[in-house]
């Protein structure tokens, strides 16, 4: 059990492609993370910093609407807000198309997979209005540039990001002895949401060595971390709890609360041995199997601890370990992996979504993805997508995958390939006799393609 180019492309990449060959060695996969991010330039997605300008505009228009109620200016502002919302909704769909095209054409597919892995680890989404459309910009600005550095930098970028601050209610958390609490009285209070999720989901893990007192202390330490639409992350001193807080036995902060204190505690949490254990297991479960080789998990944990959370070293350990290359029992692709890997196998044209109406894109991609169980950029909770195969292989999810596979490819491509060839393209040596038989026996080209894509061999990684 060692490196295998086909398995590498399926398990650590975005699937086999008729146009982009598989990697030659583990080192090539690692090196691809250092190469310029070409595919991001070819298929751009708006960075969050640019998205903020939309939020500023929205804020300006809302002010006009409120201040000049009943006037033509207010009416014009109302209409402009509507356009702003609609444009953002359409752009959100466009960016999803870009994610698919990046996966279809990239020669550094591990980067795409890691971006989604960490983006899901740090699940964040807007709750109402324009900011609901900001998830892809958040991925682009906070996650993607940080996937191959140190975990602590990724952690800080994600946890202090305006979208996370908004999603987990940190913007309304007010220290009980803060200046603002004195002003507002009973209405102001601490919100533990972000503090709890940082400990439970982002760092130590649910079985980590923290108590309710640590959650509370961390919540007090996080007070002041808010956002505004001008600068994004914004520290509001009047919200901050004065004095030091003790998290896992160590004291942080003091009389002059600031973002530095928050970064300090996040760095320590990132280097904690429980974080090493939590992330090692999560990475192995995500990329290899629901029940990964314990020796692989142990090796990842050691690597993380020894390097203080160097992510590239962690990935090198993963790719060098025999436990990562067992061909049997691989994970079932999550719905987006499934759709995007199908598009890669089909070599979806770079222009496939050009000029496509939003509603058609929804019909062909977004709604089917929802039926497969993944509602795009609208997470059920901060714990993100389920890692268990059984969460996705459900009667409804499987029906939706099969139906998508037989119906949609022909609507996206001018010509479908011959199913007999496509079995080889999509599956390589994995194309089993039953799959080859189905490809041959199908009554139509589109059913043949659909059966290959819906086969367990294609759906597992």
């Amino acid at each position: 059990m060692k490196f295998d180019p086909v398995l590498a492309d399926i398990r650590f990449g975005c699937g086999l492609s008729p146009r982009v060959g598989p990697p030659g060695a583990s080192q090539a996969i690692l090196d691809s993370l250092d190469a310029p991010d070409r595919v991001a330039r070819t298929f751009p997605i708006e960075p969050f910093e640019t998205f903020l300008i939309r939020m500023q505009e929205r804020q300006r228009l809302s002010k006009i609407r409120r201040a000049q109620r009943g006037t033509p200016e207010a009416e014009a502002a109302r209409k402009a807000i509507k356009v702003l919302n609609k444009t953002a909704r359409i752009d959100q769909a466009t960016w999803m198309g870009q994610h698919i095209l990046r996966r279809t054409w990239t020669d550094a597919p591990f980067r795409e997979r890691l971006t989604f892995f960490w983006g899901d680890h740090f699940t964040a989404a807007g709750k109402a209005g324009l900011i609901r459309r900001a998830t892809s910009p958040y991925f682009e600005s906070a996650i993607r540039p940080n996937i191959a550095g140190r975990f602590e930098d990724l952690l800080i970028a994600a946890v202090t990001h305006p979208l996370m601050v908004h999603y987990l209610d940190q913007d309304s958390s007010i220290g009980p002895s803060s200046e603002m609490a004195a002003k507002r009285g009973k209405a102001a209070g601490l919100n533990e949401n972000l503090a709890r999720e940082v400990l439970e989901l982002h760092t130590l893990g649910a079985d980590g060595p923290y108590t309710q007192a640590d959650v509370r202390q961390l919540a007090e330490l996080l007070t002041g971390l808010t956002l505004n639409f001008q600068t994004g992350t914004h520290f509001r001193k009047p919200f901050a709890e004065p004095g030091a807080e003790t998290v896992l036995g160590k004291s942080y902060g003091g009389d002059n609360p600031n973002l530095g204190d928050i970064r300090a505690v996040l760095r320590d949490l990132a280097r904690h041995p429980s974080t090493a254990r939590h992330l090692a297991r999560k990475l192995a479960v995500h990329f290899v199997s629901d029940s990964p080789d314990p020796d692989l998990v142990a090796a990842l944990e050691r690597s993380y601890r020894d390097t203080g959370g160097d992510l590239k070293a962690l990935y090198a350990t993963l790719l060098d370990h025999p436990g990562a290359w067992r061909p049997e029992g691989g994970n079932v692709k999550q719905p987006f992996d499934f759709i995007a890997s199908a598009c890669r196998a089909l070599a979806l044209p770079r222009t496939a979504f050009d000029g496509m109406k939003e509603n058609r894109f929804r019909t062909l991609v977004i709604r089917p993805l929802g039926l497969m169980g993944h509602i795009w950029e609208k997470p059920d909770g901060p714990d993100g997508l389920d890692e268990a195969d059984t969460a996705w292989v459900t009667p409804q999810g499987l029906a939706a995958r099969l139906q998508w596979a037989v119906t949609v490819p022909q609507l996206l491509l001018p010509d479908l390939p011959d199913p007999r060839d496509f079995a080889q393209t999509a599956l390589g040596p994995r194309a089993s006799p039953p799959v080859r038989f189905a490809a041959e026996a199908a009554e139509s080209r589109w059913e043949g393609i659909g059966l290959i894509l819906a086969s367990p061999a294609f759906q597992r990684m």
Partner: protein
Amino acid sequence: MTDPLSRRAFLGRSALIGCSLAASPLLTPVTFASAPGDNRLVVIVLRGGMDGLDVVRPLGDPNYAALRAMAEPEADPPVDLDGFFAMHPKLRVLEPLWKDGDLGFVHAVSTPYRDKRSHFDGQDVLEAGITDLSQGLTRDGWLNRMLQHYPGAGTETAFALGRDPMTVMTGDAPVSRWTPEADLALSPQALRLAEVVMAEDPLFASTFAQSVALAGGDGDPVEFTGGADEMMSMMQADQRASRGVALETRIASFAAQRLRADTRIAAFSINGWDTHERQDRSLPRALGRLAEVILTLKSELRGPVWKKTAIVAMTEFGRTARLNGTTGTDHGTGGAMVLAGGAIRGGRVVADWPGLAEADLYDRRDLMPTRDLRAHTGWLLRGLYGLNRDLIETTVFPGAELGDDPGLLL
């Protein structure tokens, strides 16, 4: 407190189901369900904040008319219920149920969620069944926590229907999911070949057998002979249904079919209650869907099963007592619940009416909730499934106080 015996019995059984299912791909889902109780519960989440004051109008309250003065009078008058309350004219089709005691309401209730009036948080509190969000969100819903104490629950006992996540049903207890939009339409040949391909992997094979069984049971057959274009238009029709009346009705119809068999609990949502503008136009659309769902359930559950069914529809919050500047209402607090079914003691509006004078309103703007809707729901669970009070107050609805029995069931 949890009853350790029934908990263990439940866990043992679900593990067993898991194994047998994986081992025998040909098993159809109907075979392995067994539920001892006969009572059915349908939970409908009304997303968007239903305006209880417009749906069940307190015409007898001296302050109501002034709060709800419309520019033009309604063409259709409301339906008098008890001399004090009258229901929205769009619900007139349900009047026979009211007269038979198969329709009732609970008024001036809410979850414990207060003040911020966000749909997102309000629905989280409603579905999680918790007191507040200051500790973050639990990851399971109250209906699932209830199921974990439902003796002999199998994979078909509970169904979450539709495309919404239905957090109320999420958790460790097994729950089946289906939405009529997730259709399968394949040529007979492709269907056979799909079975051949899936047979290579036990998980896929057993699940696919269930897909076919479910897809075949929701109104249109799986086997389909048509070209790509027809298939595309079917797919679009299935998706279109998700935005119109048809989807909810199809869900209700599918739910009825399951409830006649081994399913005892079904949950789904009806959206479209966020009536900020022109409520006289928007609210009837949502109410029409709700009425259609209740009528579909009644007609398709048929006599004996309908008699054992309780339907409860609840929303994340009520709306402002006053109409706003665009003849709609904004997010409020106290609201109403809708009850239906042969098992409920209907024909009444259960309320400890707080009054609508400005000083009686919550924050001088919303209907004052006089009771936690978790108390009513808790009493329903107790009456239908014999759950003990302690379990309801600590596990299903932690922090809720059941108080006196409002007598919602026959």
